[in-house]
């Protein structure tokens, strides 16, 4: 149940060398979007791209993620990699369909953002033209997200690296690790980063993007590979087409290490912890509690 409904789960890696070079793990999201753009399944996609805004605290915010509507492979390649900071992916969706005039939009997001997209489809209270135009919804596994300032704090204060010298950030094996341009690595145990997490993540009851068409993440697969859940009818169709076109190489989940069990374990861990948080919020004060969005108003 913690893994949601899915049709198949495999361990996969892109066969596209160019994409793999800049990929966080298996390059699943970039490859699927590139394939969907090529095959005219989507007209454009909303992705998290490096910020183009002015320098903040004396450095360029290359690690600050901003949602952007992209329509070409080049733009997709420029926005690879995970930055672990908040990127409001739902924001440009109405602009994408109404200003950019995209009839079929591909979107990617962490579980809570996918919840936002699905709510926009079921209750399009202020989302005119959006419900029938989400052609491909990709989800990413997510334990928690940091505000951008937290990332700066972690990298500059705790790890002692300049944020604009960082080449790759990784969360895995219990550590938050950064690699710099000059090849240095520095890491900090994940438990020391918990206090910098965004508070809204602590009431989230979804780890593997249960509501996406296809969701993927590094957990459960070997280095350089991603675990891929194929969930909806639409997702299955596009995944099968992409497989036929040879976009991915795959291994069955029971033949890779560490396998599906670790995904299940982490998902259970996150959901149990956050259910507890929700319970404790109900009795937060003296005879008074905090609001629970999942119950009623």
């Amino acid at each position, binding site marked *: 149940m913690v893994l949601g409904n899915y049709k198949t789960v495999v361990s996969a890696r892109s066969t596209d060398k160019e994409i793999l070079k800049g990929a966080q793990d298996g390059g699943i999201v970039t490859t699927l979007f590139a394939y969907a753009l090529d095959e005219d399944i989507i007209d454009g996609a909303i992705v998290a791209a490096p910020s183009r805004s002015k320098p903040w605290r004396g450095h360029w915010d290359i690690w600050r993620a901003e949602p952007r509507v992209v329509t070409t492979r080049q733009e997709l390649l420029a926005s690879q990699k995970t930055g672990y900071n908040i990127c409001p992916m739902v924001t440009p969706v109405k602009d994408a369909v109404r200003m950019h005039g995209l009839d079929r939009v591909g979107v990617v997001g962490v579980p809570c953002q996918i919840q*936002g997209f699905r709510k926009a489809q079921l209750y399009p209270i202020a989302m005119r033209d959006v419900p029938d135009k989400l052609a491909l919804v990709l989800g990413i596994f997510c334990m928690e997200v940091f505000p951008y300032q937290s990332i700066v704090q972690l990298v500059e204060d705790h790890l002692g690296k300049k944020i604009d010298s960082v080449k790759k950030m990784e969360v895995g094996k219990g550590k938050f690790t950064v690699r710099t341009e000059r090849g240095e690595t520095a890491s900090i145990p994940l438990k020391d980063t918990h206090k910098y997490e965004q508070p809204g993540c602590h009431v989230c009851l979804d780890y593997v993007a249960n509501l996406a068409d296809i969701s993927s993440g590094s957990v459960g697969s070997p280095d350089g590979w991603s675990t891929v859940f194929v969930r909806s009818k639409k997702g299955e169709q596009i995944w099968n087409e992409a497989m036929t076109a040879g976009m991915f190489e795959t291994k069955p989940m029971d033949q890779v290490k560490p396998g599906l069990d670790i995904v299940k374990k982490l998902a259970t861990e996150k959901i149990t912890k956050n259910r507890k948080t929700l319970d404790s919020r109900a009795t937060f004060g003296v005879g008074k509690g905090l609001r629970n969005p999942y119950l009623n108003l």
Partner: protein
Amino acid sequence: MQRISNIFKKQEPEKPVTKKFVEKKAESGMKEGKPVAEKIRAGHVHESGCTGCLVALADNYEGILKILDRYVDWVYDLTLADTRHIPKMDVALIEGSVCLQDKIAVEEVKKARENSAIVVAIGSCACTGNINRFDRGGQANQPQHESFVPLSDLIDVDVFVPCCPPTPEQLRNAVLMAYLLLKGTDDQKKLAGRYLQPLMNLAKSPFFSKASFNTLMQEVINQGLCMGCGSCAAACPVRAITMEYGKPQGERDLCINCGACFAQCPRGFFDHGLTEQYESIMELIQEVLK
């Protein structure tokens, strides 16, 4: 010019086809007895609003024709139905806020409540007061008309469909779900009830009828629930909300008090069980409109 002539060329050979179509329609019209009998009676009551909500409902294009064809008898509407007084209805869609100084408006709203099983407040004027909250009177030709309140200040409202204007899709969903709630099979009744529940909760909420960007601040961000997805910024009809470093920042002078940001927020209300069935629900809606 060429395009126009192409259109005429295309139409010419189709003439016999249209004839057949007309004949067929006449035949099937004979069998139409049953679906018509199961229609619900609905109407649109117009208070102080801009008719934008009704236009939004009409913006479903062929969808609204299908709805009127199969599911709904449109019995009362200032602009579309020739009826003088508010009749008995199953569903009343009320648009606009009520002016306290306008006796007829107050009476009309009370009458609508009395005469209908389900009252749906469509649009933010009816739900939260919206831009009418800023009214200070003095406008021609009734300068004394200065106090405008949302419906729920005067009558019990069952369902809220906020936003300015509400989207065609949301109005369509609300009308279809209301139909399924009244006339559907047991499963459909259950589903429709669950779908409408959050919108009914909005109507009963102690704070939502006073909504503005501040509601989003107080009930989501201040409560430690915001996770920076940006639904609010996408929802805001006046673009008063931007995302600064991943969190909503509202320009409160621009805010028109519509409450769309809070209503669209996945941490405003969210039903995991229902949303998991998104595929089948969207298929159902497509199915009934086919």
